[in-house]
């Protein structure tokens, strides 16, 4: 798996949609195969975030209590449970997940440091008091996350959005997976194809969110892309190889079809888009079945390389403040 000519075997199982069945990756199957009892597992937590007008983004951290058994986390869901609030408030929520014992983060450490919640979670909620049935209330992670017994996940929340759009948001965040007992995890597992043997824990969900637009104030989330303006931004390089599986934008097609983008792998000097392409042509959004829209084939971004995004606003109005693009994938590090 050293260059682009080889197939990314485990990446053949891509897509964020739960679909008719949450297809397991070979990594997940290989871990679960060591346990005789596998029971559905749901972990839900209620959170309430608020942001006063003009205030900087709030910060809130909570942790999961450790369990006495191993868990394989496969999917996630978020529900706006307060009928008086509107499902679009979920657009303002950003999250980072860290495995406390190893310090491994799911979000790229960049100027945002969080990822958009709907690039991870399927969603449901209310609009104008009426329930909204989104097409896919659960999303599958780019890769299953193995949570060893006795260890914890830390959740860092923020409302990365301008004031007035995000008053108070009540929601329930749910992780969905398998409770594993009757066995123990091996140190290494063998994957099909040329991937060979890898250490358990060496494939971690990866999310990298960058803003679209220019910073207009010292407020961290005040990014704006004016009509006719073009801006260049970079996804930061990582210290491990990354399998990029999909992309998500926190805009709906009526706002994003006239936003054209150009992507380039700077390390390889290879562009993905010879000309600019409309954002929805390769980036998913919240009302899709597969919001983290999968690439044609997972892309291997080598460690130290970075991706460049050039965005042009072809509309007659400024792009919605705090618009972001999130790439989803798998971080491949063996320690």
């Amino acid at each position, binding site marked *: 798996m050293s260059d682009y000519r080889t197939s990314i075997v485990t990446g053949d199982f891509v897509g964020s949609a739960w679909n008719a069945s949450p297809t*397991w990756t070979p990594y997940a199957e290989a871990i679960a195969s060591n346990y*005789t009892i*596998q029971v*559905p597992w749901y972990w839900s937590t209620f959170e309430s975030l608020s942001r006063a007008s003009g205030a900087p983004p709030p910060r809130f951290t909570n942790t999961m209590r450790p369990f006495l058994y191993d868990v394989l986390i496969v999917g996630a869901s978020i529900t706006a449970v*307060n009928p*008086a609030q509107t499902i679009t408030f979920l657009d303002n929520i950003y999250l980072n997940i860290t495995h406390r014992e190893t310090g491994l983060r799911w979000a790229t450490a960049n100027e945002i440091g969080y990822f958009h919640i709907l690039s991870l979670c399927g969603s449901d909620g209310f609009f104008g008091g009426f329930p909204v049935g989104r097409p896919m209330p659960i999303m599958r992670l780019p890769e299953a996350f193995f949570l060893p017994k006795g260890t914890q996940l830390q959740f860092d929340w923020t409302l990365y959005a301008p004031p007035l759009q995000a008053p108070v948001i009540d929601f329930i965040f*749910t992780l969905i997976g398998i409770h594993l007992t009757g066995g123990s995890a091996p140190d290494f597992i063998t994957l099909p194809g040329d991937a060979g043997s890898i250490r358990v824990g060496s494939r971690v969900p990866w999310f990298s969110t960058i803003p679209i637009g220019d910073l207009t104030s010292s407020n961290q989330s005040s990014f704006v892309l004016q009509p006719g303006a073009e801006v260049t931004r970079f996804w930061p390089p990582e210290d491990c190889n990354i399998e990029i599986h999909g992309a998500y934008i926190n805009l709906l097609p009526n706002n994003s079809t006239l936003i054209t983008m150009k992507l380039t792998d700077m390390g390889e000097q290879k562009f993905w888009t010879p000309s600019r392409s409309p954002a929805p042509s390769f980036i998913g959004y919240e009302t899709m079945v597969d919001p983290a829209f999968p690439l044609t084939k997972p892309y291997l971004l080598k460690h130290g390389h970075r991706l460049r995004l050039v965005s042009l606003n072809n509309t007659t109005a400024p792009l919605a403040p705090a618009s972001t693009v999130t790439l989803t994938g798998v971080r491949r590090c063996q320690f």
Partner: protein
Amino acid sequence: MYFFTKYVYQILDRYMTHLELIDTIPIGFTGVASERPAPVFTNQISEDVLYFAAAIDFLNPAVLIRIRSVSPQYEWMSNDDPLPQDTPINAIAGFTSQVMPILPLVQPFFLKAQGRLQMSFTNSPANAVNAPVVGGLLTWRALRLTNAISGGWDYSLGFTA
């Protein structure tokens, strides 16, 4: 339609016949906000059962659910906080407006003959526009596993990858 893991194949391989089972359970909501009716159970089946997916007949994302199996007893909702948070119904069961009206479990769940699933519901809070649910049905899609080979599957049997 469903994706079977190796674990599921090993269970299925222990039975010669797999029969469709569609089990609908009335929840018994009376339309009172945030009410918690008595837990409801799946029907007792005289054969081993593999539960695959669930559906509900109402759209209300603020309805919560907690599930455990009875005999053997496994808690599905694992939050062990002092005040455990139940799970929104939309993370368990599908509805007709969704792509998958029957939402599949992350992994099918095996239940021995005469075993049951216990489901505890909480109705949605008060809402000026959309009232809490009245009635409510939850339907499980499952397979009845009959004509067991060598006694069928059991949790203690072990599993070989």
